[in-house]
Every structure is written in C-alpha cells, then in structure tokens.
C-alpha cells in the first residue's frame, strides 16, 4: 500500500522556501534600482554643469539650453517607465521560480 502524502510537511517546506525566494528577488531588484538611480543622477549633474558652461561661453543659445533641459525631463520619464518594466520582469521571474520551487518541493517529499 502506498504511503499517505504529508501535505503539512509540503506546505511548511513551501512556506519557508517561498519567503526566502521573495526576499532574494526583492533585494536584488531594490539594489539594482538604487544603483541605476544613483548613476542617472550623477550623469544628470555632469550634464547640467556642462550645459551651463556652454551657455555661459555662448556655445549654446538660451533656447537650445532650455531644449536640452526639457530633454532631460523626457529621459526621467523614460527611466521611470523602464523601472516599471524591470519590476514587471522581476515579478515574472518570481512566478517562474515559484512554479519550479513547488514542483521540486513536492517531488522531493512525495518521491513519486
């Protein structure tokens, strides 16, 4: 006769593993987003300095300077959209890992 499946054991194991998986996924995403935002700000600071100097020297007109500032605003909007996209990718990766985790845990415990 076949041994009964221990669902409590499966659920307990899954609870721990899913919590770990969620923690790792979120930590990775937050670290990447933070690094990306810092790099973006640093890059923006350099550009503002350069454009101001070019304006002062007369290499850029006021109109061109304003155009470039506005282009930076558009890049900020694009960067925010990219982060929303990366967050969605992480969610899909989490879902995929979750399915693998469930399959592996069930088979490890049940041993079909």
């Amino acid at each position, binding site marked *: 006769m076949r041994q009964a499946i221990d669902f409590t054991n499966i659920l307990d194991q899954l609870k721990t593993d899913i919590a770990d998986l969620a923690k790792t996924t979120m930590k990775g995403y937050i670290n990447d987003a933070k690094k990306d935002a810092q790099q973006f700000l640093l890059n923006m600071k350099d550009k503002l300095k350069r454009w101001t100097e*070019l304006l002062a020297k007369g290499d*850029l007109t006021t109109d061109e300077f304003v155009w470039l500032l506005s*282009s930076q605003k558009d890049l900020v909007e694009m960067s925010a959209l*990219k982060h929303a996209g990366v967050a969605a*990718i992480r*969610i899909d990766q989490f879902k995929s890992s979750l399915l693998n985790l469930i*399959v592996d845990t069930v088979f490890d415990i049940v041993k*079909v």
Partner: protein
Amino acid sequence: MELKHLMLRLGIVLLSIQIFSSCKTISVFDQYAYTQSTALKVDALSLMDNATTGFTANTTEIEDFNLKIQKVYEYEKHRPKNEITVKLWDIIMNPDKNLLGGFLARWKQNNTLGKTFINEAKIQVGEAFDIIVELESQKIKASNESVSNFLSNNK
C-alpha cells in the same frame, strides 16, 4: 531515475511553462526588437550629425529613417504585453517632446542646427535608445528556461 518518474516530472514542468506563459506580466525578450532598436540608435545618431546641413537637402535620408522607425514601432505595438516599450517609443518619436522627434521638428523649423547643440542632443537621444535596449535585454528569454533546468538537473 525511473523513466516513469522522469516523464511525470517533464509533464509537470511543461504544464508549469504553459501556466507561466499564459499569465505573464510583460513581454519576453525578442531578438528582432533588440537588434532593430540598436540599429536604429546608430542610424538616428548618424542622421542627427547631418543637421549642420539644410533639412531639405536631407529629405530622402530623413524619410528613409522615418519609414524604418515606423516599421519597428508597428512591430512593437503588436507584441503582446508590450505597452511599456511602446510608451518608450512614443516619447522618443513625439515631435512635441525633446528627444528624436523633437530634434527632427526643430531641424525642420530652423533648417540647420549648431554643432554643439547637435552633439549634446545626440547624447540625450542615445540615452533614450539605451533605455529601450536595456529594458529589452533584461526581459526573460523565451528559451524555455524550465525545460533547460529540468534537462540539466536530470542528466
């Protein structure tokens, strides 16, 4: 490992892939979209260099480029769950904003543009293309990752 066990696991992995693909949040990686976006970046920056010469003298090149970008835009628009990438293209191409579309509109309006301004605008437009390319490159590769994992775990 027993064949029966192996087949059952494969069945479950394939079912998982099926479930996963039907509930995705964002489109998967697309090599064509990635290649086209990087190629368009090179074309766009090269075209912008011509803005020191008259807009009308560059009409053919500008029309050719617009046709290429429209084709890529249409392709992106019809990929499922690809709204974010389409929004990114909308911003780049919008003549009322200040990236590629705005640059071309300004070129048309002024007929020629200054070299310093072109160089700075190229940096901005280049970064805009990079955002699209970076997002695409981070998307999940549709190479049935789970099948690969399954096969490597059960050698």
